[in-house]
Structures are given as C-alpha cells and as structure tokens.
C-alpha cells in the first residue's frame, strides 16, 4: 500500500512517454493523453491524501534497503497537501490550455514531466534525490517558457535556465557538504547525525546557507528573482498560470521540508543569528517585491513581482522558527498558489480577448468580460489579504507569530506589503470597473475552459478561506520539532 508513493511519481513519467510514441500514428494526441494522466494523478493524489489523513504517513524505501543506504519516499500530511495541489493544479491547467497551451506531443510530455518532477520533490526524503527532481521540474519549466510565441520567449527561458541551474548547483554543493560532514543523505539520518556533529560545525553552517540560497533562487526571493517577471511575461498564458502556481511553491515546500526534517528546530534554536539572517532576507524580499510591483505597467509583471513579495512572507513564516509561523507560511503557500494561478488565468483570458498586455489596456474589460473580470477582482482581493479569502489567514498567522516572538520587522513587513499590494492592485481594479472606454472592440471569442478556470480558482480561494481552520488543524501535527 505504501507503494502508492512510488506510483505517484512513476505515473506521470510513464504517461509522458506515451505522446511522442502515439503521435507517430495519431495526430493531436498530446492534450488527451495529458488530460487522462492528470485526471488519474488527481485521483491517486486525493486517495493518498485521504489515506494519510486516516492512517498516518505512508513511507517506503526504494529497493527495500535500510534508510541510510537507500532512498526514502514518504508522504505525511504536509507532503500530501502539496502532492494534491500539484495534481489538481496540473489538471486545472489543462482545462485552461485546451486551446492556448501545450497541444503538441512534446509539449504534453514536458507538461507531465513537470508534474512528475514537482510530485517527486514533494515525496522524497533524500536531499540528493530532491536535487534530481528539482532539475526535472526545472528543465521542463525552462522548455515550457520557451514555448511562448513572442521574440522574448527564448531569451527569458535561457535567463531562467542559467539562474535556476546556478541555484540548483549551489543546493547540490550544500548537499555535498552535508555528506562530507555526516556521511548521510537521508533526512531522518541527517537529523540525528547533525546533532552529533554539532550545530556550530563550519560545514553544517555552510550547508544550511548554500541550501537556503540555492532554494531561494528557485523560490525567486529578492535579489535573485529577476528570472520570474521575464519568464512569466514570455510564457504562454496557460503555462504561466501553472508555473506561477507550482514551481516556486514546491521549491518553498522543499525549503520547509529540508529545514524541518534534516536540520530540525534544534538547529534553528542553536543558531539564532543565522535564522535572523534568513528572516531578514525574507523581509527584504517582502518589501522589495511589493515596491517593485508598484510601477509595473504590464499585468503579468505586476503579478510576478507580487509573487516575489508573497513568497517572502512564506519564507518569513518558516524563519520565525515557531509552529504557528511555519503553519502560516505553509497555508499561505497553498492559498497563494491557488489565487495566483487563478489571477494569471483570468488575466490571460482578458489578455486573449483584447490582446491587452498593460494595466491601461485592461480598461473597461468588466463590461465585455464580466465573468473573467469578476474572477480576477475576487482573486486580486484575496491576494491583498481580504478575508474570508484564503490570502488573509496565511498572512494573519505569520504576522501573529511574528508579533508573539517579537519579530517586529517581519510583522511590519507583512502589514506594509499588504498596504502596498492594495495600492498596486487597486489600480488594476479601477481600470477594470471604473474606467470607461468608448469604441471598445468586442473581445475575441475565448474558450469556456479559460473563463471557467478563473472562476474555479476564485471559488477554491473562497472555499479554502472558509475551511482554513480545518486546514490548519489538519496540517498542525505534521509540523514538529519547533516550539509552538
């Protein structure tokens, strides 16, 4: 039964081998195969999630070896939440890209490999295997960004590749130092051995910084965020929505998992200055992301810079070193993924309808595309953090924990970023609803899938918000080893 964990990763990989083979005979087979695989993956992920909730974590070691020799895969409540997010967002993304996104056989294969890589990151408990799956997801993401039809797609993809690979390599060097210091790669074994090696050992400290910086590049924290606005602007709208939802979110989950499972709360407690440094980097990212978003004229770049700020909040939650802070960060990761994906989808729908790129060109869109505009407005308000949408609760818990532990800078940054986000999103809402534009061309026909995906995301954001108490209660036992 715990083999289901392996099937979670193997299923999208096997499905990804089908399109190029079948497309030799049958044309247009890319999207259907991807849709079938994503549906099966969603079913399996929800089943695994339900079993984990009922019977506790699923755990298996590849080839039946002891954990110190083999590769351990495990799904606890925290992993299950992200596995389900990846599967559902993968399926949701396909509904959007029925017309826009990857229809060709290679495109569908890479889309499934992206899901396989991201799912792999969520289930592995070995720090090197995490690197391999980071590169699978990374490589698929670089190529999917290059799918954009503008001239800026290939340069944006190459810039993303260069920065992303430097980040992954720094993470790999951190793994190397951990192995040299402890002789282990499994997170559980690392936790024990790091305690014996000592939390002040130079190699261990260097490994923590390298892992944090490496994954920080993948999360696109300031100042290593420059790849994100270009990539999200250049990619096809459907791909941008899925990348915005999953890639940085799962990288942030990886940071939480490595810090809590391998280094553990004891390491954080033993190195207050280091943790304060991580928190300062997060705060810098929160503020810088919001400030950079203010002057943006293109909607996608505005949403991308807002992501830089929101991920800063999630990392700040982790860097508070308290269970409430980490929980707030995790909930914010899940909520932000849903809202940001929906916002990109809705904006993409309006973009496709009017070939509108900048905020000004979104003027008076509500009159002709009321549904997409309503979805975009709801999601944008959620991103600002207006309850009862889920955007509020993640921020609230991080800010609450910051106040309780006396991390005033973090609390202030969260409030400031909320105010700034209200400022830059209000401009968008004002254009959508209050600005009149005569002689507005009737919008080009937009597939129902595109509009529905925006609405679905808005409803999900509302649902998650209303159920946030249950979500917190479900996730709480999975965060251990840190003071409350």
């Amino acid at each position, binding site marked *: 039964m715990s083999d289901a964990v392996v*099937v979670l990763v193997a299923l999208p*990989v096997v499905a990804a*081998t089908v399109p190029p*083979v079948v497309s030799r005979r049958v044309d247009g087979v890319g999207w259907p195969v991807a849709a079938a695989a994503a549906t099966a993956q969603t079913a399996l992920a929800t089943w695994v999630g339900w079993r984990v909730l009922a019977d506790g974590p699923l755990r298996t070691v590849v080839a*039946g070896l002891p954990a110190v020799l083999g590769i351990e895969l495990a799904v606890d409540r925290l992993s299950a939440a992200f596995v389900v997010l990846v599967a559902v967002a993968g399926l949701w993304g396909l509904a959007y890209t029925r017309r826009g996104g990857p229809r060709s056989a290679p495109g569908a294969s890479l889309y499934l490999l992206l899901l396989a890589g991201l799912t792999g990151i969520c289930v592995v408990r070995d720090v090197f295997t995490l690197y391999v799956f980071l590169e699978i997801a990374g490589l698929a993401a670089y190529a999917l960004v290059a799918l954009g039809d503008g001239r800026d797609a290939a340069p944006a993809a190459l810039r993303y590749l260069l920065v992303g690979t430097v980040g992954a390599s720094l993470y790999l060097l951190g793994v190397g130092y951990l192995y040299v210091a402890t002789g282990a790669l499994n997170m559980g074994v690392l936790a024990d051995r790091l305690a014996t090696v000592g939390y002040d050992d130079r190699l261990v400290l260097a490994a923590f910084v390298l892992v944090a910086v490496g994954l920080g590049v993948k999360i696109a924290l300031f100042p290593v965020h420059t790849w994100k606005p270009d990539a999200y602007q250049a990619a096809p709208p459907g791909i941008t929505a899925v990348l915005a939802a999953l890639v940085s979110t799962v990288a942030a989950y990886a940071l939480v998992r490595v810090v809590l499972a391998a280094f553990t709360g004891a390491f954080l407690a033993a190195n207050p200055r280091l943790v304060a440094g991580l928190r300062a980097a997060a705060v810098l990212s929160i503020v810088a992301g919001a400030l950079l978003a203010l002057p943006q004229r293109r909607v996608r770049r505005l949403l991308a810079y807002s992501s830089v700020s929101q991920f800063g909040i999630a990392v700040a939650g982790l860097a508070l070193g308290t269970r409430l802070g980490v929980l707030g960060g995790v909930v914010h990761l899940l909520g932000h993924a849903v809202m940001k994906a929906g916002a990109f989808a809705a904006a993409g729908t309006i973009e496709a309808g009017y070939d509108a790129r900048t905020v000004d060109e979104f003027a008076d869109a509500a009159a002709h595309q009321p549904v997409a505009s309503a979805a975009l407005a709801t999601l944008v308000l959620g991103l600002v953090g207006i309850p009862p949408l889920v955007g509020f609760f993640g921020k609230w818990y991080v800010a609450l924990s910051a106040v309780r532990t006396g991390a005033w800078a973090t609390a202030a940054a969260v409030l400031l970023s909320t105010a700034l986000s209200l400022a830059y999103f209000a401009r968008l809402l004002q254009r959508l609803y209050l600005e009149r534009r005569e002689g507005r061309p009737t919008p080009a026909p937009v597939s129902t899938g595109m509009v529905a995906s925006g609405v679905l995301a808005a409803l999900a954001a509302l649902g998650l918000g209303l159920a946030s108490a249950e979500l917190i209660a479900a996730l709480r036992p999975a965060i251990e080893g840190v003071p409350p």
Partner: protein
Amino acid sequence: MSDGDPASPGVSGEPRERPPDSPVVTTTVRLLVPFVVTFGLYTMFHGTSSVGGGFQGGVVVAAGVIAIAFAFGLDRTGGWLRPGALVVLPAAGVLGFAFVAGGPLVLGAAFLDLSAYPVAKAVVFGVEAVELCIGATVATTVVLLFRSLGGG
C-alpha cells in the same frame, strides 16, 4: 527540421545541401566507427563487472552514429534520423526502466528491489537490463540533440 510551420521560425531557412566530406574523412569514419560502436556496446553490457555503464556506453555509441551522419551528410541518412522518429527510442528506454523497476512491485517487493525476480543472479541481470534501457535512451537522445541542433 520542419521549417514549414509558420508559428515558429524555421531555424535553418533552406535545408542545406552539404556535400559529403572529403574521402579521407569518409574512409576514416568507415574504418573507425565499427570499433567505436563495439566499445560503446561493450561498456554498456559490462557495467556490472568493469568500469562503465549505460550512460558512458550510450554516449560512445551515439558518437559513432553521429560521426557517420555528419561525415556522410545528414540528408543521406534517410528517414530514420528524423527527430520525430528519434524520440521514440528514449521513450521506450524510460518505459523499459519503469517496467524493470516496477516488476518487483507486482511481485510484492519494493520498487526497484531487483532481488525479487525469481531468476538466478536476478540482481546482476536486472542491473544489466536497466543499463541497456539507459544506454538506449542516452544514445538516441544524444543523436537527437545533434540532429536537432545540427539542423539541415
């Protein structure tokens, strides 16, 4: 290299009609390649007992194939070197790996637990089967990379 597709710019413009290289190159390649490919296959097959394995062997075999293709001109290699056709073998290699590794699951053991197969010296044969799948995938993908990048 399909450059008929308006959506993405045909990278190489007109397919280049490059004459085959000078006879020195073609004879050298004709003499050399059989040994290169044999060494590659040896490395691939004997991954368990000597240095080497699927990756190294696959790359050496690919080097041999590419030497032929580039020496005798890409267009003469006919249909079997078209990128669309070339991607089938890597897909089959990954599928083969998944099945060899997934077999133990069906037999009640853990994923990739090759000792679960009811064959004598199951692990050695299992490892070599996986090495072959890796070799096939790597060799064909490297040829595909050169074919796509080389254009023509």
